[in-house]
């Protein structure tokens, strides 16, 4: 079991090892696993180059997570606890889109964004996402359905409006589900490659993964610096995963099993 784990971890360990080596040691045969000298300055050098892209990624991830949670919670609550006309139709419409590969509507979407002047801006990378949270709505609807009626009724008797009941009373009850959706949303936003690649032209607007791909050609011919940069791009989601592992696993398994 330990052997299997070491083999599995090898690519990651190799990356970190190379990121700390001096340039002339990276391609040495036979390869050295522990760098002879630890060159931490690789990281400061890579971080310098990556900083603007890091900020773009952070900005997009925050917008995606914040607004997606808001709209998904609104819709999830509506579908779980409110009665209104065409509710079933609306819900079926929402779920039907989960089946459609995004490639099908990519071209018209691109033209739509071009008409709106959104190409080479950050809008296409968060506005459409936060307004189409199919999975998040579904998950939060499940969570809201699991809350006993008494809480809501007590709030209503106190004269609270529908929105106040939702915001003050019900939303705090589904924090674990919010954390699960938030974690998965962060990951999707942070690791998105296709979106930035298609909708952005200016290098200064790019996110970490695309910047990394660009670096390969433009900035770094030095493998040790490239590996340091790669390590830096995977660090934020990895740290988040370590801290919020419980919610990730919950989100992943809920996506699969609570039909």
């Amino acid at each position, binding site marked *: 079991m330990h052997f299997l784990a070491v083999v599995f971890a090898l690519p990651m360990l190799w990356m970190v090892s190379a990121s700390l080596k001096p340039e002339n040691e990276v391609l040495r045969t036979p390869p050295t696993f522990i760098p002879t000298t630890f060159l931490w300055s690789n990281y400061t050098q890579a971080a310098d180059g990556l900083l603007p892209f890091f900020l773009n990624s952070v900005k997009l991830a925050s917008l995606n997570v914040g607004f997606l949670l808001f709209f998904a919670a609104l819709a999830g609550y509506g579908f779980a606890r409110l009665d209104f*006309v065409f509710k079933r139709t609306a819900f079926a419409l929402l779920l039907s889109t989960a089946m459609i590969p995004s490639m099908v509507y990519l071209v018209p979407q691109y033209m739509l964004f071009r008409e709106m002047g959104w190409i080479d801006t950050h809008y296409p990378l968060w506005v459409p996402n936060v307004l189409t949270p199919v999975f998040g709505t579904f998950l939060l609807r499940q969570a809201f359905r699991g809350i006993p009626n008494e809480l809501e009724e007590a709030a209503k008797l106190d004269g609270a409006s*529908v929105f106040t009941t939702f915001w003050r009373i019900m939303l705090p009850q589904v924090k674990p589900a919010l954390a699960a959706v938030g974690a998965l949303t962060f990951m999707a936003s942070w690791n998105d490659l296709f979106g930035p690649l298609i909708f952005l032209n200016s290098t200064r607007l790019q996110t970490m993964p695309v910047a990394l791909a660009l670096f390969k050609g433009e900035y770094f011919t030095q493998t040790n610096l490239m590996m340091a940069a790669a390590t830096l791009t995977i660090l934020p989601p990895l740290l988040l995963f370590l801290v919020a592992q419980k919610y990730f696993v919950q989100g992943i398994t809920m996506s699969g099993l609570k039909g």
Partner: protein
Amino acid sequence: MTATALRPARPQTKTKRRTAGTPPRRRRRQNLAGWLFVGPVIFGVLFFQLAPVAASLVVSLTNWSGLNQPKFLGLGNYVELFRADDTFYDSLRNTVVFTIAVVASTIMLGLGLAVLCNQKVKGIGIFRTLYYSPVVTNVVAIGFVWFWLYEPDNGLFNSTLKTIGIDGPAWLSDTRTALVAVIVVAIWQGVGYPMVILLAGLQSIDQSLLEAATVDGATAWRRFWSVVVPLLTPSLFFLTITQFISSFQVFGIIYVMTSGGPNNATSVFIFHIYEAAFGHGRLGYASAMGWVLFIIVGFVTAVQWKLEKRWVHYDN
């Protein structure tokens, strides 16, 4: 996400009955409130997804490049795709090979890892985290590392092979090994997801069933295949559906590691669409391919649902 979404919503007769008795003014207010809550998302889905889907069908019947006055071609794009586009067949074949290999391997290895990680051993959490961590890692970083491991002269694989006297192939630039090399990376990256799903499935198994089987004299091997696996079939079914859909639409790892090369040996469906739309500006043609993709994915998924009864075992 998709499997759950595919289940048709149950009619909510209870809701109907409750609204029937409410006075019209209150009902209007209820309707307004409800739609204020779900409205943004319904608008988003209509505006950003369903309307573009409909538009895409129209565009697929034209020679639109985004700049020219589009000319109506009827099914011309579809005919060209099937009759005159060899790259399309290459990419379709690669996609099918990639999908079968990745779906089968990630689910089987995921099951093995889930069983290993289900032991009550101190520090088992570290192993789970390790196997899942590539899933949260971005594909560009992964591509970098593996690209370099595969490097023909100084890469870790070939340097290791050299020490035992073997000259390794140029993994990513040899048409015979490139697809396999990319598949290995995809399996390594993707195996954590089935593992987590199956681990949750394993943990929800009622232990008394296993104890009963042990009392009846079933060996550990027999218990696994006759009790554990049947109880996991709902999770396995969910995984075949979701893993198929995501593998069939692979893009990132191909883009980063090989860009479809050498000589189209790793060109996959999405990559072909991407090239047509953004490389050659053939938006009509790319849309036609998008629809072919939709039809293939929809058809295979429907077949999977049809076969569900044959092998999936539900408790209740």
